[in-house]
């Protein structure tokens, strides 16, 4: 199927990417080719194949709801991680944002 510019713009919006007009055209074409390739794969009969959503075969893995199982020391953890942010203000992570 042929991707329209509008569809590319929608996907760019969901991805939070800004594209110029040239890029939109390039991607429209590339997306269409990728989907055409998937169409070819879809021709294979997979009616007897279960989709692979889980590869471990594990079920019912749960963790006890106890603070004692917390191995990381939170006192330094939070401050350290905020320190690693490119921008911060007091103990907050700071980002560019406009509404």
């Amino acid at each position: 199927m042929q991707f329209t510019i509008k569809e590319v713009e929608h996907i760019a919006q969901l991805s939070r990417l800004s594209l110029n007009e040239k890029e939109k055209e390039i991607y429209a074409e590339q997306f269409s080719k990728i989907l055409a390739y998937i169409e070819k794969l879809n021709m294979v009969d997979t009616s007897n194949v279960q989709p692979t959503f889980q590869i471990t075969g594990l079920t019912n893995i749960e963790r006890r709801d106890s603070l004692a199982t917390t191995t990381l020391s939170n006192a330094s953890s939070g401050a350290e991680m905020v320190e690693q942010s490119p921008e911060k203000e007091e103990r907050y992570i700071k980002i560019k944002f406009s509404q």
Partner: protein
Amino acid sequence: MFLPTIGLEVHIQLKTNTKLFCGCKNSLGMEEKPNFNVCPICFGHPGTLPVLNNSAVDLLIKLALALNCDVPNFTKFDRKNYFYPDLPKGYQISQYDQPLAINGHISLTINNQTTKIRITRLHLEEDAGKLLHESHTDYALIDLNRAGTPLIELVTEPDFHSAIEVKTFCQELQLMVRYLHVGYANMEKGQMRCEANISIAKPGDKLGTKVEVKNLNSFKAVERAIEYEIKRQSEALESDETVILETRGWDDTKGTTYHQRKKEEAHDYRYFPEPDLPPLTDLKEKVERIKTEMCELPIQRRERFVSEYELDYKTAYILTSDKKLSGYTENVISELKAWLLTSGLEEGTTEEMWNKHKKKITKSVANWLTVELFKFFNESGATLESLKITAEDFAEFIILIYKGNVNSTSAKKLFEIMLKTGRDPHHILEENDLTQIDDSAEIDKHIAEVINMNATAIQDYKNGKVNAIHFLVGKVVGLTKGRANPDIVREKIISKINHEHVAS
């Protein structure tokens, strides 16, 4: 006229010790500092993996059973993908097509009308962090304390047809969540959040376009917002305009809803099964265990208070609106029952004795709790937790009144002292000289005094001004420092006056 159709989506923060997918403390809005209860997992750092909190599953199943839901034998998690600064991983781990509970229902009674609300589903998901942004600035501050908090998302069928039904549902749900110790569900603290989907149509027509309304932070807001939205949509349709499919926010100050953003379709979230979390299977055993741990639900307790204690529905509702209060009430009543059966006041079987006095006793208890105790709570800001009066002492207090050992004025004084000191009523009575004076001689003495000093009042009474008696009774009771039984005083005064009247 239009018929409103409303469906509800409620998010409830769970009262677990740790977050849903990591061992961080679940502080439910009570953290000391920003980014304090955090770790690389809830920060969404590369290479981290989520592990499911077993308590969260149990709490959801508990609430689901209370709502008559089915718990399927297989359930899994899914990724809900979208980008927003308060969503560290760029996706929320939630449940899409195979939730933990489905097909429940609850009955609501409003003004003696019962309506059944179907519960579509309950599922588990993680909460996002907090984004702090001041309008007209170009930056925002992120606090991830809340990121990873376990949530139950509850969705109802569009079975509501009025704002009051929705509000009643939310209040009952909050009470159930508290009774079951699933969460605190304080709306103002964001521990329970409601979103309504509202549409209107002419009766018989198919459903109208639905509008999602968000930012409802109190029961009052829920009611007002829905009423406003019904009105707004009705006016639009009446003026031949169309209702747009959209999300609107509620502005509590202005009392209006405003456009927020167009609602996203499910495929924009690109849901797919969460590869990092194994599914849950064979839930039957867990369900059976939790069934045995279920406590009495608010509606069951309410109905039991009405039938077992012969209280009226409204009083039962008030006494069960807090689980601890209802427990306290029952403890007091059971102390009173035990006393009655050993008091020798009556003869007969235990059931006969209890049935004879039950209504009067429970009414007295209910009255002192819902009037005087609540008044004390309101005025002093105290709560049941800080109440100094034990159930045993409260029962003793009621017994003293029931037996006539204190009159109503002294009882109030006695109650006040009990509230302040927590001491038992018998000791307080002795020390403070509050026992009712029934001694005829003493009363007669005071009556004679008062009659001598108040000739005008006596004359007024003789002339037909019946209320003059109140004045005289008040004077006598005052002389006994509130301890004389006003009814007895009144009878005595009247008979004395009449006696003298006859004599003269």
